């Protein structure tokens, strides 16, 4: 009975997307119902699978080629294990809340049908990544996710910024995916299979394989894919621009689920990442976390602040994967991924509620005083902020604490970096709260603001619950069972669970808390009741660098102009003037010239002909004599 559930979970959103595209593009209510219905049913089925405790795989053969030496067999299959089951719940659960919210948010847009079709296509693709049993299938859905993200970022394609952002996201991801694909081919070339289960067995049976240099390189290449999708330095530039898409899209795709796919994939293939690759991954994650947090403190667009925050938190997760060590347990990364999905989606939806109330104003310096006008939005936003900062007992506290504890055990440098990022996070989030929600009103817009309707506030409340409580649900232990390492006995009771981190790794827990306090005090001192940002005056040029994102975008634009555009122009020149011009025209010209010269010989004059005839005979005779 439950055998068909995974297939239904995967394909219902696709059916919805196809149904909307073919029949309901112009019917807003029908398209919304199809799309919401599909994801809610998928969620219900996922809950059923979770409760039932289903494990295992179902599959059928998709491609099968062989020529004796090598065989290339690819299955399409679905894999249920702790990792994918929990991810299913996150994607469909958070997805359900955001789908419903979208109905309120996009209600007046003429392209509602197209919107919901894209959203359902995305859900399908994301579920495919979660359930994939092998590298190639994962890559297939990986690309589909990229396309649906492209469609949704560019949803308002009439806006040049949106169209450019969509293109940038696609291209940057493709650069990462190029490495990913090479990595996959390399894995296949060395080990002869792409199936996760078989690969894991091989690695377990032969531990020396992890030291194989080719597999080490494959690990780096596979990480390229994760770096693209999870927007890690230096491929991070697309994510902030992706905020040009509708806000619910930012919440679902560019905060909660798709950008987490890179982390998920790294955990899925963690068994074949070598020590070098893991160290590299840890540092890239750490650098991303720090850079993004720094950039966030000088942004003024409410969605962009949240986007840099997402980058930074993704950096945390990637760092944790790297720090977990060969054959280690990266479940802390998955734990943070899960809690982050709840509270970051909530933050974006809250921001969307504000944006809607202010008629699409996104500059926090034109807001202020919203806490009284929009109490539900404010309090849920507050819960999410506290969770993001890592204040006990909110969910983020537990997951961030595990990350810091992992770092403390393995790398003092990255531990210090992690604590600093925690402080920065609190600073920029409370800057946002103090400027946008409290303090004086900074333009006329907030005067007319009022709380959003229930279709918007209900999803906010629904997401606030796990943002607050998810730390107590044992999600970390559930993930840990995937990696087979025995975790310490779980504490029982709420108080015991709350105090466990302090007893377990006091350095990490108190360090994190201290950072939060310092960050909060700094934000309070600088931004409480302010109408202007005092930082640029204090920091001068540094503030400008932070605001302009360390000029990465400009640097890349210059690099592309200097290399690829120049090469393309050169190639065009070669084609036009050298190949088509010189060689082809040259051949043409020399044939024509020969023709013209020979024509001179054909005068029609008998004397000329006889003269040439005699000359020819003479030359021939001479030739014979000399021989």
């Amino acid at each position, binding site marked *: 009975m439950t055998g068909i559930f995974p297939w239904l979970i995967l394909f219902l959103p696709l059916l919805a997307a196809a149904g909307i595209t073919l029949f309901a593009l112009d019917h807003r209510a029908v398209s919304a119902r199809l799309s919401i219905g599909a994801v809610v049913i998928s969620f219900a089925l996922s809950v059923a699978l979770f409760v039932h405790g289903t494990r295992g795989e179902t599959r059928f*053969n*998709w*491609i*099968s*080629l*062989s*020529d004796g*030496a*090598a065989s*290339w067999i690819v299955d399409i299959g679905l894999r249920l294990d702790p990792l994918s089951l929990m991810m299913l719940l996150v994607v469909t659960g958070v997805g359900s809340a955001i789908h419903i919210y979208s109905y309120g948010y996009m209600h007046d847009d003429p392209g509602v049908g197209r919107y919901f079709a894209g959203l359902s296509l995305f859900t399908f693709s994301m579920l495919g990544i979660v359930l994939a049993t092998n590298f*190639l299938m994962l*890559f*297939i*859905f990986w*690309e*589909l996710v990229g*396309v649906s993200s492209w469609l949704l970022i*560019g949803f308002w*394609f*009439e*806006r*040049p910024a949106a*169209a450019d952002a969509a*293109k940038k996201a*696609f*291209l940057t991801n*493709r*650069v990462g995916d*190029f490495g990913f*694909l*090479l990595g996959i*081919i*390399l894995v*296949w*070339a060395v080990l002869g299979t792409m199936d996760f289960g078989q690969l894991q067995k091989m690695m377990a049976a032969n531990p020396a394989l992890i030291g194989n240099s080719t597999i080490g390189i494959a690990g780096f290449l596979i990480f390229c894919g994760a770096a693209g999708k999870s927007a890690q330095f230096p491929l991070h530039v697309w994510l902030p621009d992706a905020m040009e898409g509708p806000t619910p899209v930012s919440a679902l795709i560019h905060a909660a689920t798709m950008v987490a796919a890179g982390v998920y994939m790294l955990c899925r293939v963690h068994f074949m990442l070598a020590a070098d690759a893991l160290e590299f991954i840890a540092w890239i994650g750490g650098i991303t976390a720090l850079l993004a947090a720094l950039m966030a403190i000088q942004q003024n667009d409410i969605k962009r602040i949240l986007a840099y925050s997402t980058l930074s938190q993704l950096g945390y997760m990637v760092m944790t994967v790297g720090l977990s060590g060969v054959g280690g347990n990266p479940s802390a990364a998955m734990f943070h991924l899960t809690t982050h999905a709840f509270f970051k989606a909530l933050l974006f939806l809250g921001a969307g509620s504000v944006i809607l109330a202010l008629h699409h104003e996104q500059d926090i310096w034109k807001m202020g005083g919203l806490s009284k006008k929009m109490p539900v939005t404010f309090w849920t936003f507050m819960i999410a902020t506290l969770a993001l900062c890592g204040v006990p007992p909110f969910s983020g506290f537990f997951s961030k604490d595990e990350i810091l504890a992992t770092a403390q055990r393995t790398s003092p440098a990255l531990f210090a970096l992690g604590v600093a990022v925690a402080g920065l996070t609190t600073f920029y989030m409370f800057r946002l709260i103090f400027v946008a929600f409290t303090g004086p009103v900074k333009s006329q817009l907030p005067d007319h603001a009022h709380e959003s309707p229930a279709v918007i506030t209900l999803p906010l409340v629904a997401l606030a619950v796990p943002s607050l409580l998810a730390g107590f649900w044992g999600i970390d232990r559930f993930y840990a069972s995937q990696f087979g390492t025995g975790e310490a006995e779980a504490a029982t009771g709420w108080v015991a669970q709350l105090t466990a981190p302090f007893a377990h790794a006091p350095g990490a827990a108190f360090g994190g808390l201290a950072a939060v306090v310092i960050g909060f005090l700094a934000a309070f001192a600088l931004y409480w009741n302010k109408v202007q940002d005092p930082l640029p005056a204090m920091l001068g040029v540094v503030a400008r660098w932070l605001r302009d994102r360390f000029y990465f975008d400009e640097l890349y634009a210059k690099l592309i102009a200097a290399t*690829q*555009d120049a*090469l*393309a*122009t050169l*190639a*065009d020149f070669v*084609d036009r003037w050298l*190949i*088509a011009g010189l*060689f*082809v025209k040259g051949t043409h010209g020399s044939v024509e010239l020969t023709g013209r010269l020979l024509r001179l010989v054909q005068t029609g004059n008998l004397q000329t002909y006889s003269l040439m005839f005699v000359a020819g005979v003479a030359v021939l005779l001479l030739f014979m004599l000399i021989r």
Partner: protein
Amino acid sequence: MLAWTIYISFLGAGLLTLLPRNSAALARRLALLTALAGLAVAVAGLIRFDPAAGTRMIADVPWIPALHIRYFLAADGISVTLVLLTGLAAVAGILFSWNIEQRTKEFFAFYLALIGGVYGVFLSFDLFLLFVFYEIAIIPKYFIIAIWGSTRREYGAMKLALYSFVGSAMVLIGMIAAFVVAGHLTGHYTFDLTVLARVPFPASFQRWAFPLVFIGFGILAGLWPFHTWAPTGHVAAPTAASMLLAGVVMKLGTYGCLRVAMTLFPAGVTMWRTEIAVLAVIGIVYGAMVALVQKDFKFVIGYSSVSHMGFVLLGLVTLNQIGLDGAVLQMFSHGILAGLLFGVVGRMVYDRTHTRELADLETMNLGRALPFAAVTFVIAAVASMGLPGFSGFVAELQVLVGAWSAFPKAAIAAGVGIVIGVAYLLRAVQRAFFSDMAARPVEAAAHHPLPPISWPERIGAGLLIAASLVVGLYPQVLLNVISPGVASLLEAMRKGGAL
């Protein structure tokens, strides 16, 4: 039964010439009916094809006994696949030329003659017969472009014809040489491809005969640097002709490379495969690069064909099962997708806007004016850039996987070509359909609304998209017939000294 594809097409072409003047509607219907009949035979051929039985004989009778030339038709999995491609492209091309009003019946007569020639090439197992069909296919192409073409049509047609004939001349020399040398060696003169493939040609002969024949066919496949006929030819040609040109005629080239050059001269392949792989990869990256800076919409697609055909050529010289399977699958896939892209650009856009300059199209708000064209082009573009679910992904991935074991560096460079492929297609999508300038009100478009997309166009686009999707979602449907064909060719090549 497959031979009927040839006869039906020529019969249709003949009937069309007999129609009275001013019978355009009848001519269209007759042409469509003929192409549909051909497609039906091709589909039936695929379904009834038994991969386990190997090459299936169709007809074998003496034709010019004095020269040992026979009328020898047969089909293996590769032929069956390409015959199916031809059938699909032929039907779609007719649907996309439903609006041809000038000398309609002559157009379709030439068109069907071209199709008949193409079917003939894919089914001939006698080298001389293959060559005859190959030449038959070239002549109507010239007239179609020169009479019904657009931009610089005489130039484009002449350039295409000259390139084709240079290639043919090279093939002819190689062919006669093979005939004579094989006769000397074995005492048995024949053009039978299956027999010639078993002749142990001396290495010194293969060293020059292989590149001669391979490049001779390769010219038509857009092998760099002999590709320059392709963009100008595509641009000059009317829509249906560019669909066929990119869709099937370029495949004649790669098919010839595989069926003639590589099977006859396996030792030659081994000697020259690195050079060819280099040329193929240059074509992939270079075609994509040049496509990135084109100002003419059709030139973008024209150069993209050069790039995608590079994958076929690269797959051919991998000389392993996966790479060759990929090459044949890519022939099919590119045939479908290039047809679709040219259909959108030439018929849906150019015939309505009368411009292909991206700078002009930017101002026309085509995303709103022609939503069907925009959606179709987006689908074709993502399919062409290798989105999983469409045929291109499986085909190019197989070529990359196959190339990895033969030429790892080439595989990496080809991968770069895929990344650039995304860039030029996204650029074209954005500029032609969803430009930021399109937000401005345009007076001209408001006064003269563009004619809506007609049903033949919708059906043609749907047919091609469906074909690409079916193969993309379940590639085994074609791989089941392609693989055994490739396997037996490879087996023969190994015996003949390849690798």
